[in-house]
């Protein structure tokens, strides 16, 4: 089947098998290997991308379902050499170790902040419930998302997929 998809700002038209998952289309056809596969039951969230501005697990979406849509992956977040505030906050707060869950975790965090621009710890934990991390124990991820929230103006939906120019020093490290 023929699909037309805009991924990270570039439009693609491809013939895909009806059974092909969006994540495999991104990885195998487009070479967007920043998005990864961590499980086969949609529990881990490593493959999370944005479809028309909202997070989806790309292992649970068929490529044909993305026809006519805009997809944003981890590779499309940084603009003009500047990191997205959530990417920056993950770095500043040591919210990753092996980094395999990180693309999905960042994409889900952006969606979470779109729905709730100033989440408390509990809201962050619930918002990330569908994304597993085996390295960090989540503590610094929670910290990073809340740090990012402080660096982003309140916004909603795709509006949060932007880069701020102003950075203030990150919070000191240590327990919450």
């Amino acid at each position, binding site marked *: 089947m023929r699909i037309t998809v805009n991924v990270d700002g570039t439009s693609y038209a491809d013939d895909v*098998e009806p059974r092909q998952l969006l994540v495999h289309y991104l*990885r195998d056809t487009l070479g*967007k*290997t*920043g*998005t*990864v*596969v*961590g*499980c*086969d*039951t949609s*529990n*881990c969230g*490593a493959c999370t991308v944005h479809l028309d501005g909202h997070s989806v697990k790309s292992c649970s979406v068929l490529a044909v379902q993305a026809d006519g849509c805009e997809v944003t*992956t*981890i*590779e499309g*977040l*940084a603009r003009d050499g500047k*990191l997205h505030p959530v*990417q920056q906050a*993950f*770095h*500043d707060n*040591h919210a*990753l*170790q*092996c*980094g*395999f*869950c*990180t*693309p999905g975790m*960042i994409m889900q965090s952006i969606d979470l902040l779109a729905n709730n621009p100033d989440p408390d*710890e509990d809201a*962050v*934990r*619930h918002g*990330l*419930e*569908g*994304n*597993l*991390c*085996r*390295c*960090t*124990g*989540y*503590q*610094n*991820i*929670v910290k990073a998302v809340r740090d990012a929230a402080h660096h982003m103006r309140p916004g909603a939906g795709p509006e949060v997929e932007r880069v701020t120019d102003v950075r203030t020093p990150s919070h*000191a*490290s*240590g*327990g*919450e």
Partner: protein
Amino acid sequence: MTATVEPEVGKARTRKEDARLITGRTRWTDNLTLPGLLHMAFLRSPSAHAKIANIDTTAAKARPGVIAVLTGADLADEQGSLPCAWPVTADQKAPPAPALAVDTVNFAGEAVAVVIARSKAEAHDALELIDVDYDDLPLVLDLESAVADGADLVHPDLGTNTSAVWIFDSAQAGTGTDVADAIADAEVLIERTYRQQRLIPSFMEPRSVMVDPTGEHYTMWSSTQIPHILRLMLALTTNTPEHKLRVIAPDVGGGFGGKLQVTPEEVVCLLAAKRLGKPVKWTESRSESLLSAHHGRDQLQKLTLAARRDGTVTGLKVELLADMGAYLRLVSSGIPILGAFMFNAIYKFPAYHFACTNVFTNKTPTDAYRGAGRPEATFAIERLMDELAAELDMDPLELREKNWIKHEEFPFTTVAGMTYDSGDYEAATARAKELFDYDGLRAEQRDRRERGDSVQLGIGISTFTEMCGLAPSRVLGALSYAAGGWEHAAIRMLPSGKVEVVTGSSAHGQGHETAWSQIVADQLGVPFDSVEVLHGDTQISPKGLDTYGSRSLTVGAMAVLKAGEKVIAKARRIAAHMMECAEDDLEFAGGQFTVRGTDKSTGIADIAFAVFSAHDLPDGVEPSLDSEATFDPENFSFPHGTHLCATEVDTETGMVKIRKYVCVDDVGKVVNPTIVDGQVHGGLAQGLAQALYEEAIHDESGTLTTGSFVDYLVPSAVDLPSFITDRTETPSTTNVLGVKGVGEAGTIASTPAVVNAIVDAVRHLGVTDIPMPCSPMRVWSAIQAGGAR
């Protein structure tokens, strides 16, 4: 060249590694591809124990896109036996361990055939067309039944299900007295049986391997912790000349011991690429990973603690049954033995006996998982200390203090024969009590009990230590391990003043690139950003023993420092020549050689360029500052700490909530506090997960019923609390930085702290134990049974 003013070591640097990981510019093995790449898929046995009567691959071979279908019979002459590097006893029994099963299958999930096809989908489609006839054999699934007289056998040719019996006895070893006397003379005996449930390491990146046979070498990319060990073992196993094999561990998404392995899939991938002359790749699914990658823990512990009524512990007897699963993998047999030196923990009791029986069952093989033998031991002793305190009606912290090694008694040789170089249990405990509000929470606990509150509060303690930094080669030799425990490093001074640091310790999330840069920046006086750390490729980093057992900093970084000393010594000779002075007149600090008492100086970058141009070097001096070094540690590393956990237990539902978790760890000097905190958080999460959530369960047919992330409960963000972490700093005396390992500490310490807290919350209801994981159902059942008593 500007000198580094503020020391890098100790700085909370953000990580160099992050840039690629937060932008998706990563090289996971599954991201890689090559022209003409073929894809593998494995057919796995649904039966846990069966004879393979027949395999028909005709239909699969005929399917479009399929290049080859191979069975164990096809590979029987070349696949060898998967290696076990740890014959723990001279008479250890180990069955042949084929990569693809040949005559029998011994666990559900064992690979029996492989399809190699032009696409992954075509390979998977063809699996369904392979027809295998299995003749079921008797199952061995239970540890105790496996060692009973007349038990069915996993490997009938061995004549037993016992692989080895390994014993340490303090009276025989001369490290203490006879435990039988201690038990006979005891005023109090605490006898318990604990189950260390089977766990699955559950690294987030599924395993993946690709082999390219093009050219003069076989190049393997693998999601492995151990590229160097893997290269050697594959060479020995498959009869591939070692110098014709290159192993690369690109970005690796976690390991936790689970990727400390030489896997059947790596062997088959290499053999398939050799046979077909084409590059071949395999990437597992999550369910395949949970089923067939090695599992961890799975021990039955029979424990007898002897004590006097004043709380003085006088002896400990440990009898273990350790489940190896169906085969011995790389270090399966040694994992429980690592625990032998840890059951005595931080305590001074004089008599100790440890006996471990390694047992075969028809289950997935077990091997290293974060902590590897030491979490099991720590759980046992820390649970027993709480049980003894309850028996004697003593405060469990006071009981511990009565028995632990005092700060002024270090170095201290334990009843298990280890010499702990340093420690300050008093300081860590005092700080933890303060952060925890120990006395306040005890008061609240009393209040809730008096009120008969449906939600009860419990306080759990774990004053742990562990041995890590694997390991002094002589000690490994004495324990019959096949390899040593050294680590290798090289430093290359580039003409532009930049520095390449090559480490044999292969990182997969630990932050070596950042931490090693900090260490070298201080040592050579170069900027942090001028240092590039290279690892994980046997051609770039030809020597090494890789990453496990919290060894990277305490062993690997010491090799880096040793190489750096050689660089400085070479540079000193050239600096003396350049400034026309004696070498002894030179001081080296902040990257500058200065003639003592003058302002004459030369920077190390200038020397590096002078060496590169080589126009004016002293006679007989080779034009290179580059140096390498191998470091063999003189002792293990003994981090310690005090962990305090408060749980709220709903006595009506059995639901457990972690109210507060405080840990004060002592990992000696800290190179990067941010990385150390991260290691502790992640370690705690995995230890809590054993206490509360995770268990690999097999049904009566030997089928893994927790074969996906729906059933195997890796905790999510809502399942874990925020931890309060702090540190005391008692420098190690056995390495120049004073550092200790940290990678496994949180996991080792936390499991007993949590279970102790749960039991403490409901002990007044007649509960003395709850099997792990302490699910609401199990906690509720224990309360019901306690009340009925």
